[in-house]
């Protein structure tokens, strides 16, 4: 397991401004000029040596993007984004496929070190032979939208699993990419998805063939590095009949005064009896205590449970970004398919999160569970927004939703906006939501047992999030817990 996000000593963090991952890496970059036009898209496509059909698809997405407006329904506020004032392509300059440590840019290695990636994983990322024996996680590292290294590919290939940058999948497995790309999130689905479809530069591709249980956790590490550069990665995961895969993603960015745009798209496809477990620890730079800087995170994540008894489970711990706009969803098409959404969203200072899920029940006896825990501190606003829809053919379908909000301090906001729609009498929907604060007697009880105020809050917050954290792979859960503690610093008076 990668220990990429390893919070340091909280005291150190507090004195230095909380965000440990805020360094910048001085790697030689190749950057396209600012601005977005058909020419930009042609340039990206050419850089990637893409087939004609993909360029056409991008251009169609771009046309759709120009026809749509930024959505306004979310409870978020930000100054207008100038889409012409961004770079849409930035890549670390390097020779393709470093074969030894010496070939890897030393700055990149230094970055891994700062990120707390254990040495042997660094070696794996750097491509040193023989380094793959010890650790059970395969990692794809994406820097500014370009995949720089993917580990364990041979071990995975033996099992029949494809795990590679999506740009490579376009070249090596065009039939798979062409078949599934945009099949869950169409090119023109929404403003940000259309933008991503037009300009995405890289991301991860996973294909687990029929009957294969992926032998290890797959992990992608996303890092925004370059200044004024939008990051638009695209992830596509396909689990064929009876396949199983657990996928983790982690995200960080440097500390900057200006806002950076991130608009990713993730598509998951699960066929009969397949299971995809998708876990995210999102720790993009949230901006400083005054609300300067931070990532604008507009993400479209959607999974299609196409097959009978298929299952897609989203788990997310969202502590970063100035703005989070994200609704990992499940289209429950196959009979008896299962969708799950487990979420912790913590906002502090001036962060704004509008996040939740959509569970669209199409098939009979489909089942979904939503557990959402929102924690608001500082002057932040935290909104759960979710849709549960039971379509006429969803006989015997079930949904259970639990949304809890916790407020820390009286300058923040916690909002719950569920949309619940049912058109089938045999479908059953249950929704519960609560809002509360940390009770004084809980705090007092902890403190009378010797805990500091801050430790007591962390303890209670972790308890509040337990139902979600337990869904994460264990080591990730430990990281997530520490991350919550670090993100809360300065919120308790």
């Amino acid at each position, binding site marked *: 397991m990668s220990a990429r996000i390893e919070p340091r000593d909280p005291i150190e963090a507090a004195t230095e401004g909380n965000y440990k991952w805020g360094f910048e890496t001085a790697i030689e970059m190749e950057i396209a000029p600012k601005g977005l036009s058909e020419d930009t898209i042609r340039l990206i496509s050419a850089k990637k040596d893409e087939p004609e059909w993909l360029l056409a698809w991008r251009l169609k997405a771009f046309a759709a993007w120009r026809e749509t407006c930024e959505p306004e329904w979310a409870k978020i506020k930000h100054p207008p984004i100038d889409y012409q004032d961004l770079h849409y392509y930035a890549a670390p300059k390097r020779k393709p496929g470093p074969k030894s440590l010496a070939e890897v840019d030393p700055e990149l290695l230094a970055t891994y070190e700062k990120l707390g990636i254990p040495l042997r994983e660094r070696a794996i990322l750097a491509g040193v032979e023989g380094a793959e024996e010890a650790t059970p996680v395969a990692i794809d590292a994406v820097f500014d939208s370009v995949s720089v290294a993917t580990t364990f590919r041979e071990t995975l290939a033996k099992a029949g699993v494809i795990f590679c940058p999506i740009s490579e999948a376009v070249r090596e497995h065009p039939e798979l990419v062409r078949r599934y790309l945009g099949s869950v999130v169409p090119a023109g689905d929404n403003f940000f998805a259309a933008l991503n479809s037009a300009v995405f530069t890289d991301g991860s591709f996973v294909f687990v063939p029929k009957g294969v249980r992926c032998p290890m956790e797959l992990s992608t590490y996303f890092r925004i590095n370059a200044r004024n550069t939008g990051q638009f990665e695209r992830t596509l995961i396909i689990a064929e009949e009876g396949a199983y895969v657990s996928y983790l993603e982690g995200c960080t960015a440097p500390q900057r005064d200006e806002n950076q745009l991130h608009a990713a798209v993730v598509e998951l496809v699960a066929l009969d009896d397949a299971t995809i477990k998708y876990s995210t620890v999102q720790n993009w730079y949230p901006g400083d205590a005054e609300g300067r800087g931070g990532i604008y995170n507009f993400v479209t994540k959607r999974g299609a449970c196409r097959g009978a008894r298929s299952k897609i489970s989203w788990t997310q711990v969202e502590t970063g970004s100035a703005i989070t706009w994200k609704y990992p969803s499940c289209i429950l098409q196959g009979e008896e398919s299962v969708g799950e959404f487990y979420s912790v969203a913590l906002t502090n200072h001036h962060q704004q999160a509008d996040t939740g899920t959509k569970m669209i029940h199409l098939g009979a006896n489909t089942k979904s569970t939503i557990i959402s825990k929102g924690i608001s501190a500082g002057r932040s606003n935290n909104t759960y927004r979710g849709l549960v829809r039971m379509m006429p053919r969803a006989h015997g379908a079930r949904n259970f939703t639990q949304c809890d909000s916790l407020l820390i301090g*009286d300058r923040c*906001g916690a909002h719950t*906006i*569920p*949309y619940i729609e049912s058109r*089938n009498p045999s479908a059953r929907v249950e*929704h*519960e939501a*609560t809002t509360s604060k940390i009770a004084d007697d809980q705090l007092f009880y902890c403190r009378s047992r010797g805990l500091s105020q801050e430790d007591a809050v962390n303890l209670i917050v972790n308890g509040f999030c337990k139902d979600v954290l337990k869904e994460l792979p264990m080591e990730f859960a430990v990281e997530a817990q520490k991350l919550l503690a670090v993100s809360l610093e300065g919120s308790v008076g």
Partner: protein
Amino acid sequence: MERRAAFAQSGLPSRKLESWRYTDLRPLAALDPIAAPAIVDTTALAADLPALSGPRLVFVNGRRAPALSVAPPSDIIAAGGFVADPARFAALPLAVLNAQFAQEGAEIVVPDRFDAGRLTLVHLTQAEDTTPVFTHLRHRIALGAGATLTLVEYAAGHGVYWHNPVIEITLAPGARLRHIRIQAETQESFHTATLFVDLLAGARYEAFTLGLGARLARSETHARLGGTGAHAALSGAQLLRGNQHGDITSVVAHDAPGCTSRQTVKNVLAGRARGVFQGRIEVARAAQKTDGYQMSQALLLSPEAEIDCKPELEIFADDVKCSHGATIGALDPEQLFYLRARGIPEAAARAMLVRAFLDEAIEGVADGAARALLESAIGGWWEGA
């Protein structure tokens, strides 16, 4: 004809407005009604009055009907004709329309510490031929400090019409209003009611709204808890069938500390009926120690019925206890079998379970006669099934 033109231009809210996403007023726009004409002899409508004794203010086609009314005690001022503050309704197109067209209404003012007992407010609308008509009544109800009133509101009619009343309620400190509303409009009609309730310190507003009638109905309540310790209970039930569309929308704004709000809304939907519940609890920064609770439950009795439900919490104060719940389902087959195994025929067993389903929402109705009226209205719904 002048009015008709004004109506056409007025711009009914479209589904693009978030608060109207589940209710489509295009059928109302297509109705193209004219202002309801005066009914000279209203006595024939006596049969439409609810079976409740005591003082009664009756409006027919938007005008007072003294022949059908029973004067309230002289302590209560029940006048009409006043000027409303349109600025307040700017964001609410239907209230704006009402402000444009309303000419009459009741003004009920209960003096401080006076127990005004029960008063019934009846709206009857009658379209005389096939031409659809509209009425826009505007009522004001003000209770003085410590005053109490039980207000039963009843709406019914004949033919095709649109009834669009606005009621403004202000409750002075310690006042208590029990408000029972029965909407039994014709199956061809449109009913859109907007209520504004302002509560000062320690005031109590306890409402129960029963929606049975109308082809399309919306009951929208904006309650503002503006004084410490105020309490609002907004319960309601809709029993719909056929192609009926019923929408219960509410916004409860907690603006002062230590207030409580309770809301239990039940939808019973048969045929191709569509029920909507939108309920928002807003807690302002100042409203510490707020205790808000909301429950929305729906029973779908047929495969073509639909429920859309949007319970919302918007909270800016930290020391609060707010929760909501929503459930949607069918009648429980286990319960149905249990009743039948005790000899209760299926139809009666269903009615019994539906009545039990409504119980939690109705149990707060304290006035015996009003409750009996509700029970018989619900009982009548089954007979129409």
